[in-house]
């Protein structure tokens, strides 16, 4: 159940992360320990001194949309939209974009705290929230289009709108597994003939005041979770033409007990784990230590922090880089969320993947 054995080909990829705006080199940088954390800029006022994995200043040349459009975007939506235009460029998919499917793991709302604060300032008097004031003044204090920043499906929609991606689609809320579900559904959309090409990945940010406050309250900060942000996408195709790699396997379940990976452990030479918090990390390490003793292991969260819905997808793209650079032949990417959900994706080389696009 919930397993695809039919291979789906990868035609391109994109990653936006603290590593930068390029997916090539990501896996090697992670392997080499070349990506570190720094004091968060986005949380500097609200939570000073927090270390994070943040995307650097976005160059205008690669940014998504104009200033007006960006005001409608949450941070994950903006990162996601950048990833969409990059993955389309990387896969050279410039035609018939209206037929391309799009399945995306998205997180919670990520609206502007400036807008929220303005709203609250007009609505709170003497530490009492006033509905009357909120209705009469608080609402008027915020940008009329603030609600668009709160809609988490816009993490998918902005990228689709800006780039004309019009095929079958779904946004899945993700605490890890929703992003794997997005990949799973994209693969099925291709296998079922709903589309010949599809994008699959995730975008999210834990470097948001409210999200970080929740992670602190829930104890993840004390456990050492480092907030991260990013977006990553794979361009999937039914065609092996110029394929970079194959998605060989995609499976996920609500619990480790229910997960059956049915893999040839000896064939896996590299594992990337993407845990959300320490309990998840322990679960994944236990799987690796008991089933995959021969493989090299890399914990993506130790370098890129936890970018929530984006992290599993960043893991896939990092694995793709390792495959492309011949540092691995078959990679397993394992993710686990705070809800007990667990997913496994295997990427492997194609016969031609080493021959083109160095």
């Amino acid at each position, binding site marked *: 159940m919930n397993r695809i054995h039919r291979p789906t080909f990868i035609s391109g990829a994109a990653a936006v992360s603290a590593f930068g705006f390029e997916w090539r080199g990501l896996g090697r940088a992670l392997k080499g320990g070349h990506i570190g954390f720094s004091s968060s800029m986005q949380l500097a006022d609200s939570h000073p001194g927090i270390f994070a994995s943040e995307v650097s200043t976005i160059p205008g040349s690669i940014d998504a949309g104009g200033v007006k459009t960006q005001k409608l975007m949450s941070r994950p939506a903006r990162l996601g939209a950048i990833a969409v235009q990059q993955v389309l460029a990387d896969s050279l998919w410039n035609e018939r974009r209206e037929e391309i499917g799009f399945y995306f793991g998205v997180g919670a709302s990520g609206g502007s705290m400036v807008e929220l*604060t303005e*709203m609250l300032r007009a609505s709170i008097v003497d530490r009492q929230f006033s509905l009357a004031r909120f209705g009469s003044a608080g609402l008027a204090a915020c940008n009329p289009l603030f609600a668009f920043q709160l809609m988490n499906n816009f993490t998918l929609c902005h990228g689709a709108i800006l780039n004309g991606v019009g095929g079958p689609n779904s946004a899945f809320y993700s605490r890890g597994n929703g992003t794997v579900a997005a990949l799973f559904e994209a693969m099925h959309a291709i296998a079922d003939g709903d589309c010949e090409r599809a994008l699959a990945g995730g975008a999210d940010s834990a470097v948001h*005041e409210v999200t970080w406050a929740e992670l602190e309250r829930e104890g993840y900060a004390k456990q050492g979770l480092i907030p991260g942000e990013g977006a990553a996408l794979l361009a999937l195709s039914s065609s092996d033409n110029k394929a970079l790699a194959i998605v060989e396997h995609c499976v996920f379940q609500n619990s480790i007990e229910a997960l059956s990976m049915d893999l040839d452990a000896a064939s896996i030479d590299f594992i990337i784990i993407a845990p959300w918090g320490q309990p998840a990390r322990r679960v994944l390490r236990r799987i690796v230590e008991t089933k995959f003793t021969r493989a090299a292991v890399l914990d993506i969260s130790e370098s890129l922090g936890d970018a929530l819905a984006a992290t599993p997808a960043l893991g896939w793209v990092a694995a793709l880089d390792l495959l492309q650079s011949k540092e691995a032949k078959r990679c397993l990417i394992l993710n686990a969320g705070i809800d007990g959900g667990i997913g496994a994706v295997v990427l492997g080389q194609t016969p031609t993947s080493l021959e083109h696009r160095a």
Partner: protein
Amino acid sequence: MTVAVITGAGVVSAFGIGVQAFFDGLAEGGSAIGPIGSFDASSFPTRFAGEVPTDIASMAETFRNEHLSGGDTHLQIDAFRDRKVVFGLLAALEAWNGAQCAQREQEAALSIALGLEQAFLEDFAPIFSSGRIDWKAESDIAGANIRIRSHVGLCADLLGKLLVLRGPTFVNASACAAGGLAVAHAASLIQRGAASIVLCGGADSMVNPLGMGGMTRLGAPSPRNEPDACRPFDRRRDGLVIGEGAAMFIVESEERALRRGVTPLARILGWGSTQDAYRVTAPRPDGSAARNAMLRALSRAALQPEAVGYINAHGTGTQLNDVAEAQAICGAFGRHTDSLPVSSIKGAVGHLMAASGAIELAACLMPFQRNLLPGTAHHREKDPLCEINVIGEQPIEANIDITLSNSFGFGGQNASVILGRYK
């Protein structure tokens, strides 16, 4: 090919709790839109909604007494601060029981459409000082576990615990298209053999201060605070009205249903989704992407347009949506459009946002259950720009076998799902 069937349904709507209350309300041709009672909206520009007619506290209490016996507290009663959570649980229980689900059905997957987190703005008050949020003070605040905002997947988490579901969970976050997509996804899981049974549907409520306020700032709701605020496809329409509630279904293979002695309510024949890829703030005016979602659904169902006997439209009552949807229907159904009855229930129960596609699929069961096509509350004056066959305020009798439901989301996500009468 494996046929996916609906074997149970549950609804919570402005007409009340339960599928029968929903069908009764639609059958009477009435509207449940009225002044907001769950919070003091008197200072808000928008003060009318399709509100579930029970206060959430008593609903939660009922739920606690009837379903949480033995002092079971793992369901986090304070989670019911988020109104959609209790709606989702109640609708799911009705569907579960209606489909005679038992222990064996706990292998079910869950595919649910859920709206945004509910924000609790009042929770900011104790930590708001000198014009800013003092997050350092947040950890000192005692109180409910669900603070500042609920999490998007909360209802799914609780459903999994309540029904002890063992299958994987999918939370669809595709705005107003999510409900249709979640049910389509369930059928897809059944058809490909990826699940044997799926609990699916949607739950949402934006009848809360930030939900109502945010939508009002966007200019989406009708500016008129009157019971007929939403007038789908009417020449005088001026906006939507926000609703709340849930609709949940049990979907399984026909073979499985019959094996366990359950008579299906309907077949899920086809589905399709597309993206407008047009603008953030408006649907594609020519409706071409929405048309393609319907054509995809027809193609998957291997049906000609003439086979469809009724369309439950997205029909929000906004200027732009209704014209674009009418264009889309004309494009997909051609000459059949003139004889194809179309209605929208949003004038009656409001726009349930993430749950709208699910409750409108429930409305698509009414023709099979009662040989009635729902009317379009408050549709009185035909709009020449909407050249489709809109059913008026009263339902009409009809014996049809195929229904299609459209759901179009903010951001351009489109979903169409086709149901067939079970014979």
